[in-house]
């Protein structure tokens, strides 16, 4: 049952061969057994899950169930959940219980999905390895001495280790796609503005976007269909009709034009990642797709531009954590300024502080034009490169991550080395395009390799079908790590 697709789970629930309570119990018991070693969940809500499952069973019996009714789900701990604590993996919010639900959370509640708990992540979604968590790192289920990627590491681990059939994440610079690649699952970040940011704790508002993890592109399409949609409470939510992201699944890939950015294939990726990527592209050619070289000449500037824009926006967003209205307050202080400084020094971890300091500096008097404005200009050049490339192709493909999962601790004391891990994903966020990672092979140590597919604006349905077509012809997405 832990191997079943969302479609098969929904069919079993409708047929009555399985109840939602039984299904939730199965996964909750798996979490109890495996989470102590994997650390994928920060909070498990057994009572809430069972009560939601009973309500789902009633809906199933009444014949009012939707495609996700009764199916268990894990939320990244960046999404506010009323009544269940939301920590953002920070000491600052260790005891924070939100008075309201994020839009994504209410959408999935309305769909009848059953939340099992909240998943581990890099603190405030700042990181690429899940090591920046106040609750300790999540572990890669393929090799527990290695990182699962980040920042949505816990959600990726939950799906990879079959602790949940589906999970939400957020992606500001690669935080859905990269952990999906490193743990061997499928993950999609839609076009900026498709998923509401209401109740999603902000990191870099012009880049943050909610996304979906699943065992397959089909599962991601079902989950994304329930998450997405216009929400007036998010000023950057796009006013578009709701979409069925499964609508293109099954269309043949013959004639598909896949763009290969020459900069992504030049240097920087490990040989094992290159071999798996090339083999996946050969598979696409066998499915009738053609490949064409394209160029993203400014993509190399994405990391420096991102590390100005994201910290600048973070320094502004995180100014709300002042120890007054919510969050950690230092136990001792001499005056108000001291209370702010001590509360923030104690509440935030080292990487969060560094990004706030970088952001504070680049926005400070006299430096704005040299840094923030320059980064925004590069952002336009990067976006224009993609727009030009899409005149020659339907989707762009390349590696998701330059390496397979690395040992815990290997890069954690060198922020710049960690930042360079997101070389292939960050430009997509700067442009605001949809991106997806799917398992496409294995590298050194039999560790998963992800293939990244990048689509044009609002082309999620096609992107998901391009991944689905590959998964119909291969079984990389069905491999499961040997845990429990």
């Amino acid at each position: 049952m832990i191997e079943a697709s969302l479609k098969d789970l929904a069919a079993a629930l409708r047929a009555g061969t399985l109840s939602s309570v039984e299904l939730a119990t199965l996964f909750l018991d798996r979490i109890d057994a495996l989470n102590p070693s994997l650390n994928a969940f920060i909070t498990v809500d057994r009572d809430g899950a069972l009560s939601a499952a009973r309500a789902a069973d009633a809906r199933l019996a009444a014949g009012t169930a939707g495609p996700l009714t009764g199916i268990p789900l894990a939320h990244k701990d960046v999404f506010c959940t009323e009544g269940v604590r939301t920590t953002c993996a920070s000491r600052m919010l260790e005891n924070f219980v939100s008075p309201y639900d994020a839009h994504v959370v209410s959408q999935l509640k309305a769909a009848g999905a059953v939340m099992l708990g909240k998943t581990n992540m890099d603190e405030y979604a700042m990181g690429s390895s899940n090591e920046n968590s106040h609750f300790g790192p999540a572990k890669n289920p393929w090799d527990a001495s290695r990182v699962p990627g980040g920042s949505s590491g816990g959600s990726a681990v939950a799906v990879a280790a079959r602790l949940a059939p589906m999970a939400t994440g957020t992606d500001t610079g690669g935080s859905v796609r990269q952990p999906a690649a490193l743990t061997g699952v499928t993950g999609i970040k839609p076009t900026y503005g498709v998923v509401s940011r209401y109740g999603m704790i902000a990191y870099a508002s012009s880049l943050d976007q909610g996304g979906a993890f699943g065992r397959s592109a089909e599962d991601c399409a079902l989950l994304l269909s329930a998450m997405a949609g216009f929400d007036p409470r998010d000023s950057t939510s796009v006013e578009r009709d709701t979409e069925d992201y499964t609508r293109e699944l099954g269309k043949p890939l013959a004639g598909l034009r896949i763009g290969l950015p020459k900069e992504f294939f030049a240097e920087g990726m490990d040989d094992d990642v290159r071999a798996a990527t090339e083999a996946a592209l050969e598979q696409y050619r066998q499915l009738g797709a053609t490949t064409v070289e394209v160029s993203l000449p400014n993509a190399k500037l994405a990391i420096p531009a991102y590390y100005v824009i994201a910290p600048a926006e973070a320094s502004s967003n995180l100014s709300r954590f002042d120890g007054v209205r919510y969050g950690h307050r230092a136990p001792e202080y001499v005056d108000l300024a001291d209370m702010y400084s001590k509360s923030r020094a104690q509440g935030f971890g080292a990487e969060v502080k560094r990004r706030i300091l970088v952001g504070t500096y680049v926005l400070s008097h006299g430096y704005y034009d040299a840094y923030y404005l320059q980064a925004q200009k590069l952002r336009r050049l990067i976006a224009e490169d993609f727009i030009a490339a899409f005149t020659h192709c339907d989707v762009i493909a390349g590696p998701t991550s330059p390496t397979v999962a690395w040992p815990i601790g290997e890069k954690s004391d060198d922020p710049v080395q960690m930042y360079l891990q997101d070389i292939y994903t960050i430009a997509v966020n700067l442009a605001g395009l949809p991106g997806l990672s799917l398992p496409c092979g294995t590298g050194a140590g039999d560790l998963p390799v992800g293939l990244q597919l990048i689509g044009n604006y609002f082309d999620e349905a096609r992107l998901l079908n391009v991944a689905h077509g590959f998964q119909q012809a291969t079984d990389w997405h069905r491999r499961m790590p040997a845990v429990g």
Partner: protein
Amino acid sequence: MSLSIDEVRHIARLARIELGEGEAQDTLDKLNNIFGLIEQMQAVDTSQVEPMSHPQDVAQRLRDDIVTESDRRDAYQRVAPQVEAGLYLVPKVIE
């Protein structure tokens, strides 16, 4: 570009983050590495490029000027470190 330890202390003050004596040097080293990466931006001439602040060039939506929120003060204050009589308490700021 290279920051000095005094500049790091100044930024930390602006950001309202207390920096312990032992932390300042390590923070300085790491920030200088990060700025070394960021400096790559300066190699590009962008004098003819319009800045892009947002992925979708759309105008902000306007809404009617009407009350849409209900009063949930108690729920919001339940998560506050210190409240009294519906007020958030902070250290004395006026002598």
